[in-house]
């Protein structure tokens, strides 16, 4: 795909804008609090859009389109079940403690509420996690840009990181939050025309539904799934779930979806993850802090149109075979071409089976036997050129590269000009995710690890300096993680797995800490540790259908087999949460409280005076807004029932 001058001009304007924001803000960065917590000065609509933009990284954009293709409209559960209710809960019940306690970070709140042990566990695991998740997303994006646009992997990685480094270093968290708002509009306005053109091309939503109904009967034709499903499997959000794990492509049952995803995982992420909570904590007053997640929830509710629909459109287009569109296949490694071509050239055209197996082995992806056979025959009949061979070998791969869907649509519909805008939107999503991770990391490092345990009682100027140093270090470490992810894909899977174990029970600790004054420091810490252990043990004893024991679970014994990995994850979260919840209560009952009621004032629900909403306009009160959002959410679920 060729980019025109105009496309690069648009990208440069965007880069100029984000760097300009950092440059203007540099004069305000006087104390460590200005740099790391924005000095609590930002209006709610800004923190709200930043809240959602920090979450909308490149992986989310790419991954949700992939899930949209694989699972259809049910992917929207990650929004309507797995996000909105938790965001409303955060705003109404949890923000008063986070913001009111004057804690500068989520781990610092844990220190105030419990003791240094939970803070330490939470801050270390979170700090490492932000680095790795930023590395994973950087690697994924650089790879995508390399494979589909031919950009240099190293250049994309370093240039994008360099831009983020400059504006975060200049303007700190404020700069990250401001650019996130700009990135939010960039992402929405950059992808909307692509979705619109795709929808128009298929012939509107009803036509998409008709196509997907056909796909559901035979998803194997597009290599989407090996089974066949009822007609509404891709187009209804709830009906296929009610039929049990066998009747929906996610392979998930209702309980796992509602309790595992909708409660445990979703509340665990939205209510305790410092990456997003930090945005709300930077708001200028309590009202603004509480409105932050609510304002964020409004666009979040409609994001499925932007991020999931493209995946469904791609499937519909592929099923229509319009303009020969197909779901993007996995890209063959360039070093594999030479051996494959050698096999093609030496193969016996009359008996292609042996050659086919050999080729499929080298490539490592599922290949079409017919296409490979025809390459061999055509080559035997009259020698094909190297380029023809390469193109046709790539064309013979049938395994889908779901992560390439977004870019395949951008390529299909965007003429020069719009192309620049859509690619800028992709880069913006990447930068917003990365800046989010880096600003969360530098705060946790400086306040929760460095100042708390390593170098105490220094001047504020010292911590401001440390914050800046660790911003540079954080970006360099993320880049290192990206290279690590490129080299050791499996090691990365293990790391993500471990984070999954740590995250699953976390919400139980927070919920008990905030709602029950009787929770003790020991109860919280031991309960959390045992919850994490439960995740690990659960994982070692269960397996998803189709996987072999090992990294994917079941390495001690396979006690239970789940229909899909998603179901395994949701159930794991449910168990880890329940164990953490129950054990924290039991241990708290038998251990002594170390904090008095007076010390817990402002940290626990029953000991904190109710927040009085001062807003003149009753519509802006968190509880009212929250109820409106939940009603909207129910309506959306009902519409796509």
């Amino acid at each position, binding site marked *: 795909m060729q980019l025109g001058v*105009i496309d690069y*001009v*648009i990208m440069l*304007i*965007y880069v100029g*804008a984000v760097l*300009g*924001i950092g440059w*203007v*803000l540099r*004069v*305000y960065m006087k104390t460590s609090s200005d740099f790391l917590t*924005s*000095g609590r*000065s*930002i209006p709610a609509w*800004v923190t709200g859009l930043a809240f959602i933009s920090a979450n909308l990284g490149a992986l989310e954009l790419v991954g949700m389109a992939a899930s949209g293709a694989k699972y259809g409209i049910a992917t929207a559960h990650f929004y309507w079940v797995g996000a909105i209710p938790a965001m409303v809960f955060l705003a109404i019940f949890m923000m008063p403690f986070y913001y009111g306690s004057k804690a500068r970070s989520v781990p610092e709140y844990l220190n105030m509420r419990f003791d240094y042990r939970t803070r330490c566990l939470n801050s270390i695991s979170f700090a490492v996690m932000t680095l790795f998740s930023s590395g994973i997303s950087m690697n994924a994006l650089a790879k995508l840009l390399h494979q589909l646009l031919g950009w240099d992997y190293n250049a994309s990685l370093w240039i994008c990181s360099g831009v983020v480094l400059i504006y975060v270093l200049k303007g700190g968290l*404020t700069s990250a939050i*401001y650019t996130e*708002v*700009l990135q939010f*509009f960039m992402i929405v*306005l950059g992808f909307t*025309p692509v979705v619109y*053109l795709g929808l*128009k*091309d298929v012939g509107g939503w009803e036509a998409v539904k008709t196509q997907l109904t056909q796909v559901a009967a035979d998803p194997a034709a597009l290599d989407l799934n090996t089974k066949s499903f009822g007609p509404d499997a891709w187009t209804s959000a709830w009906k296929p779930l009610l039929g049990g794990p066998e009747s929906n492509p996610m392979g998930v049952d209702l309980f796992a979806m509602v309790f595992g995803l909708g409660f445990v995982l979703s509340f665990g992420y939205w209510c305790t993850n410092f990456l997003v909570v930090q945005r709300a904590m930077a708001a200028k007053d309590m009202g603004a802090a509480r409105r932050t997640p609510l304002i964020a929830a409004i666009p979040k509710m409609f994001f499925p149109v932007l991020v999931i629909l493209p995946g469904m459109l791609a499937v519909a287009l592929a099923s229509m075979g319009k303009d020969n569109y197909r779901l993007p296949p996995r890209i063959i490694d360039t070093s594999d071409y030479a051996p494959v071509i050698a096999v093609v050239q030496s193969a016996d055209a009359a008996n292609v089976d042996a050659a086919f197996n050999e080729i499929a082995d080298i490539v490592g992806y599922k290949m079409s036997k017919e296409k490979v056979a025809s390459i061999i025959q055509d080559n035997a009949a009259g020698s094909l050129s190297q380029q023809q061979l390469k193109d046709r070998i790539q064309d013979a791969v049938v395994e889908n590269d779901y992560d390439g869907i977004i870019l395949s649509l951008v390529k*299909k*519909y*965007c*003429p*020069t*000009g*719009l192309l620049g*805008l859509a690619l800028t939107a992709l880069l913006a999503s990447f930068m917003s995710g990365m800046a989010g991770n880096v600003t969360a990391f530098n705060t946790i490092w400086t306040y929760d690890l460095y100042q708390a345990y390593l170098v105490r009682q220094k001047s504020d100027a010292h911590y401001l300096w440390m914050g800046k140093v660790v911003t540079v270090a954080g970006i360099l470490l993320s880049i290192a993680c990206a290279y690590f992810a490129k080299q050791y894909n499996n090691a990365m899977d293990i790391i993500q797995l471990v984070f999954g174990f740590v995250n699953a029970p976390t919400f139980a600790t927070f919920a008990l800490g905030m709602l029950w004054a009787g929770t003790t420091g020991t109860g919280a810490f031991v309960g959390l540790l045992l919850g994490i252990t439960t995740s690990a043990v659960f994982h070692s004893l269960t397996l998803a259908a189709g996987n072999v024991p090992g990294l994917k679970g079941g390495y001690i014994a396979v006690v239970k087999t789940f229909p899909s990995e998603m179901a395994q994850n949701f159930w794991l979260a449910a168990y880890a949460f329940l164990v953490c919840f129950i054990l924290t209560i039991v241990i708290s009952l038998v251990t002594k409280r170390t904090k008095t009621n007076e010390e817990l004032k402002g940290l626990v629900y029953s000991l904190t005076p109710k927040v009085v909403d001062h807003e003149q306009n009753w519509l802006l009160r968190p509880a009212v807004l929250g109820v409106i959002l939940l009603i909207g959410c129910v309506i959306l679920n009902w519409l796509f029932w």
Partner: protein
Amino acid sequence: MGLDIRWPIGLMFSLIGIILVVYGAITGKDAEMYQRSLGLNINLIWGALLLLFGLFMLVSAKLAGNAQKKEEK
């Protein structure tokens, strides 16, 4: 803090909008190029929308700035 974010957002989108509109107007006759976008001159249409959005941001930043100045007086 110091900067109203609507200024940079407004400036950026106005500028990109103008570029796309001009580019769309120049290339409008190139039917082959716009085959991709289903025959629509998407650069012109979308550029105009971005420009409108950018201007809206600029105007609202200006109005907010004026209101604040008045308050300070």
